[in-house]
């Protein structure tokens, strides 16, 4: 297995990152702007900067088909950046929220995007041709605290959201004229806008950092601040789920997770490395880290000469340099995304974190 591809872009936190479909362009949310990098040889080179927000950009997402970039920020706005020959053109989207926008993702159909916010609403936005304008509709009902994360179902109608009220919820974001009527499934039969298809909480009720639908869309996984991941197997509308499996780990909380097939989840967070979970309806287990600790770069444990040892003791009062973590990422991992393949079978995935690194891993 080849070692992970590490790109240290800058010494600042990366709130979110996103690759274009051809993987040649990388968008990185940095402070109040979004930086666009293009691949050149083995590395990434800064190509363009999207300036439009005046507060910290919290999330960025590139639509794979259309190439449009959506960003959202603590200034309560979302911008859609349309690619054009002369660069990216921003369009302001009126979200009608009075708190920071925290998270944004395009629907798989790319006709809509959803913005989570601190105003206890999710703004579902779609383009209206007649007015040449992005419209936002609010999902409001049972949400009682900040939305930290959202994730789309493959049918582009159902939307999962995690919140600081410790609930992971599944909503319908059906918009007439934009979406096709969804097939009835495990999440419900009739799905008008703002239908609550599921509301889940685990025992220790930490706030939710990440949610994700399985490749089929029939299973929901979420990671919470109690260092757990919980996998929910629903059982049709208005019924208790078939199974809710919660795995409490010994680790620090996970910030992001992706599915790799129906029986594997990859999650990463405050422990600065990615972990693999395996299981099914009967139960899930943490199977271990995706990082091989004995990689050639880990030369920290090499034999020191006696001279060097005493020199270090003299200079630093200790013989070992322990200012570096043994993991590739040197700080919390914020975002984990599929890089190559799909959630049905991930070949490579990318992570970004507070340390300003983008790392591409083999799954």
């Amino acid at each position, binding site marked *: 297995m080849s070692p992970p591809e590490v790109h240290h872009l800058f010494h600042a936190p990366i709130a979110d990152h996103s690759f274009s479909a051809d993987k040649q362009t990388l968008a990185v949310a940095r402070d109040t702007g979004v930086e666009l990098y293009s691949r050149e040889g083995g590395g990434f080179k800064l190509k363009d900067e999207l300036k439009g927000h005046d507060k910290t950009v919290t999330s960025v997402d590139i639509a794979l088909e259309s190439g449009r970039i959506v960003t959202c920020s603590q200034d309560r706005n979302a911008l859609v950046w349309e690619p054009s020959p002369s660069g990216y053109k921003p369009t302001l989207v009126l979200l009608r929220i009075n708190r920071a926008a925290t998270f944004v993702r395009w629907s798989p159909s790319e006709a809509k995007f959803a913005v989570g916010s601190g105003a206890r609403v999710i703004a579902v936005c779609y383009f209206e041709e007649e007015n040449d304008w992005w419209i936002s509709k609010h999902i409001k009902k049972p949400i009682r605290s900040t939305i930290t994360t959202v994730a789309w179902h493959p049918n582009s109608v159902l939307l999962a959201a995690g919140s600081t*009220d410790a609930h992971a919820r599944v909503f319908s974001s059906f918009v007439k004229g934009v979406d096709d009527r969804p097939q009835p499934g495990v999440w419900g039969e009739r799905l008008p806008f703002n239908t609550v298809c599921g509301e889940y909480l685990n*025992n*220790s009720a930490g706030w939710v950092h990440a949610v994700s639908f399985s490749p089929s869309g029939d299973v929901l996984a979420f990671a919470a601040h109690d*260092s757990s991941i919980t996998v929910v197997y629903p059982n049709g509308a208005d019924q208790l789920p078939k199974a809710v499996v919660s795995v*409490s780990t*010994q680790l620090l909380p996970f910030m992001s997770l992706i599915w790799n097939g129906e029986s594997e989840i990859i999650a990463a967070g405050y422990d600065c490395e990615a972990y693999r979970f395996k299981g099914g309806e009967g139960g899930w287990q943490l199977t271990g880290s995706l990082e091989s600790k004995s990689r050639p770069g880990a030369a920290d444990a090499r034999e020191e000469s006696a001279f060097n040892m005493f020199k270090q003791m003299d200079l630093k009062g200790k013989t070992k340099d322990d200012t570096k973590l043994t993991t590739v990422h040197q700080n919390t991992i914020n975002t984990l995304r599929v890089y190559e393949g799909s959630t049905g079978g991930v070949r490579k995935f990318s992570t970004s974190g507070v340390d300003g690194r983008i790392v591409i891993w083999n799954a």
Partner: protein
Amino acid sequence: MSIIQQQSIATLGDNWRTINIDLLDPESSSNFETTTLHPAFAPVSEDEVRTLGQQVRQLLRGGDAEGALKGALENAPYGGDNAVKDLHLQTVTEVLQGIKASEMTPMLQRIYGLDGGSDALDVLMKYLYKGMAASSAAPGKSSRGSTLTPQSTGAGFSQMGGRPGPPNENSGSAMSVLLSWHEKVVDVAGLGCVGRTMTDWRKV
């Protein structure tokens, strides 16, 4: 809770600053009902906890320290009031003090390996933090009062009554026991266990 804190209606005109406006706003985040974050607990009476405590102590005296610890942790009285919870804290603390340092880690590893063992250690961690909070406040009057109340109302035999030593000495030794347990629990159940102690709404 009334809308007006401390003041009566008559003084409302002067004291509008004391109106708790959050109560008038149904959208306010201060109206967040935290009881929805955990399942409803069955109420636990003082007698039940006392009986449980005696059973646990019996196990401890009989040499089954592991059984005593498991019994105490699996039956944490989430639904009890503060007096009940303090009473159970005493039981747990006593069990912890009755286990030798060399036995701690193997015992924790055995419990962790069991079904639901991770949950048991989460509960243990909650008691460690509660114990540390209580014993650091021990020299004060309030917590002494609360630890004494159950004994004075208690019918019959109570072990804590047999040790009327100075509170400082007691809390100091209790603290060192709790700290060494804390270290061992983190070794076995990881930092995730500490995180869950903080996020969990099922308070002990």
